[in-house]
């Protein structure tokens, strides 16, 4: 019987990743998923796992400002890149307009999809500060929420957009 990779040993690789502004240089298993690197290696448990198949978006983080689903990306692929997770959204002592919008417009219930939703919304507003409802819904179409029915999430993003205009 041939031996499998697991019986013969595992491979590791050194990576340097900047997460929420802080650089981390770590030797990790090459097959380690990015979401596990964030949650377990770095202890940033705000990023969640909902489906394992890139469908639900609970694990969404920003890679150099672009939303990616960290459950189907290897941590080694993030080597040399900058990541933002939910823990990096709030400015010191406050909330970002998107975070504030989710609270003000009741854009969350169980909170499990919320980090991914907020990061995707943040990326949208960075690119398009004044999106239409249709553009918001399309931008969020890679994220699943089981609780809210999305209407208040859309309002939360609109709140953040309006706040952005004021600021």
């Amino acid at each position, binding site marked *: 019987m041939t031996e*499998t990779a*697991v*019986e013969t040993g595992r491979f590791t690789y050194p990576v340097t990743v900047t997460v929420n502004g802080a650089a981390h240089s770590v030797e990790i*298993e090459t*097959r*380690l998923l990015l979401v596990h690197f964030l*949650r*377990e290696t770095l202890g*940033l*448990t*705000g*990023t*969640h*796992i*909902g*489906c*394992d*198949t890139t*469908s*639900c978006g*609970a694990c969404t983080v920003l890679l150099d400002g672009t939303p990616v689903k960290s459950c189907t990306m290897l941590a080694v692929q993030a080597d040399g890149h900058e990541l933002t*997770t*939910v*823990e990096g*959204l*709030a400015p010191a002592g406050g*909330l970002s307009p998107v*975070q504030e919008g*989710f*609270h*003000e417009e*009741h854009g*969350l*219930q*169980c*909170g*499990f*999809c*919320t*980090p991914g939703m*907020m990061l995707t919304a943040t990326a949208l507003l960075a690119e398009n500060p004044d999106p239409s409802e249709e553009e*918001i*819904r*399309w931008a*969020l*179409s*890679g*994220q*699943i*929420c*089981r*609780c*809210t*029915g*999305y*209407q*208040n*999430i*859309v309002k939360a993003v609109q709140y953040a957009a309006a706040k952005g205009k004021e600021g």
Partner: protein
Amino acid sequence: MAVSEEQVIRGVGHSVKRFEDGRFIRGRGNYFDDITLPGMLHLEFLRSPLAHARINGIDTSRAEAVPGVVAVVTGELLAQHNLAWMPTLSGDTQAVLATDKVRFQGQEVAAVIAESAYIAKDACELIDVDYEPLEAVTSPQQALAEGAPVIRDEKEGQTSNHIYDWEAGDKTATDHAFAEADKVVSLDTFYPRCHPAPLECCGCVADVDPATGKTTIYMTSQAPHAHRTLFALVAGIPEHKIRIISPDLGGGFGNKVPIYPGYVVATAASLLIGRPVKWVEDRTGNLISTGFARDYHMHGELALKEGRITGLRVNMLSDNGAFFADAQPTICKAGLFHIVTGSYDIPAAHVETEGAYTNKAPGGVAYRCSFRVTEASYLIERLVQNAAYELGVDPADFRKQNFIKPEQFPYKSATGFEYDSGDYGAAMEKTLEMLGYDDLRREQAEARAEGRLIGIGLASFTEVVGAGHGAEYKIAGLRMNDGAELRIHPTGKAVLKLSVKSQGQGHETTFAQIVAEELGLQPEDVEVQEGDTDHTPYGLGTYASRSTPVSGAATAMVSRRIRAKAQKIAAHLLEASEEDLEWQQGKFVVKGAPEKSTTIQDIAFAAYTNIPEGMEGGLEGVYYYDPPNMTFPFGTYAVVVEIDRGTGAWKVLRCVAVDDCGVRINPMIVEGQIMGGLTEGFAIAAMELIDFDEEGNCIGANLMDYLIPTAWETPKFELGETVTPSPHHPLGAKGVGESATVGAPAAFVNAVVDALAYAGVRNLEMPVTSDKVWAALQEAGLAE
């Protein structure tokens, strides 16, 4: 004493922004998978690839040899500890790990306990199981046919796949109504298997302390107290040595009511190994092995006489999967399905139900519904709509004509419920007005003349929630009651401890508002705690829209009990007699002397510093609420769709939902619940499906195949309300978390059928996918 500054107490009726939001929007929620304990091991399951097979042997030697693997657990090992089987919530047994046979695809066969989840997964692939395939039974009709293989052949005396027969109502009276009818309308329909699929899957961290024997289980539980008792009974661990902590839950929708093998194996492994063990279910495991919903094959008939419904006859065949693990009160084998007479004054009804084992996952849970109410609501609302077509009358008018009238409440239904209150006509009128119903019917006719297919679907649902009166409603022998414990601290701040458990419903805000309303504290001054069985009062938990009807009532009652004691202290402080005091929100005032008053904060301080001689100190209490009846929320939903004749695709143009859940404690949260429920109702009507091929392979085993709508597919909602308080609930509230999922599917399906009804179409099966509509268009000669 100075009169406190007047301020509005934000109690019942205020849209207080949620207190729980702060941690979630910062990524600081505390879900079970966020918990890491020192020395923690990881559990991964090997699941059966086959739906039905005999196990001739399991070789775990290669898996055990993998570095980092601590143990491989099989059913044989569990059997040595009498844990290979466990009781279900419906009084059946369920395999924890398979021993003799596997009975559904995805069943847990063995578990690897390892230093990391990755190693555990690797090792699972190295377990060799010798399966002898058996014929798979994939429908209840097949299960009950002559010569079908007996799935539960391990049960003594079990010679078929029949589980139960259960009936409600009066057969003779119903037969008579049908004999006298001038028209009978019938419908055969299948409410397919779907899955609650909360975004967070199930899991736990089990931590048995070898030094003290204390078993702490952080688990995804909607009913932590009931689960503690069941653990004590099943595993023989003394109940005070078990502590269940249900931390933040990423949704539940009924999926986190049952006890699953993962909790049991992780706990047993922690006990045997002496280290904490974490089990994290993956999405496929969640969809193929944990509590599914529905799977009811239904036949309904309405007896009609002079435009009135005079009788209802229902036969229902239930597909329960390999183990009868439905989560429901013990007296009702088909849950509360006998609410099937709905919002209508039907003098005679008879409901016959039968359940069967199949080679599918067990666990008929109520996916955002109170024990099979959604199946019942779907059937009656589809039947009523079809009856209107057959009689050639407007579906709204037909409903209005047959509604139970406001003056008939409390209303005794033909299947034995006593409806507490309702005004169905008012909710209907409000919906029609918001919709512009008459104009829409005109537009529908005009569009049809232009070759466009528009449909208007209605559903006037009635729910039965808040189970229930403890003498009648029990699960595993436990009365369906719930508790609230309230402590007022010396400085007038409070802690409220509840037996229910939020999965996102906003308990930390809503229940604080109940205390605010009753005691005049601001809701910010009340911290709500739930989920930890060592520190909260006993109760059966959150499902079936129970929290507000039961623990909400308990909260109001314990607050009133504390207010009664506060009055005695106030009398002492004001040197007045108790009878001379009047309660105004937040203070006691001497009647006729408004300058003489004392606030609840002053009283709280006095409770610990200055009480009358002979009085027991402190200001706290506990109340266990036994509901005198269930509550009956209702509403009318309307959906407008347009069908694309070229593809069969249908698009929602409008969705109007008028709900009456009695008094609304936090209107913002209530509306949030309704929109979420409407979305899940839409999802079930349009796309969610757990299906199986004839070998019992699950189709719908991940979120690429089990379709859940995103913001892009989900329609926009227009909400309205009427308020008919519950006469027996202390606050007049009824519960609302599930109303929309109960009412919505029929409204969506009725809308699509309505677009085609003029061409004779009377039924489309859920999920109403475009291929089914396309086939109907073809058959009706309407396809483009």
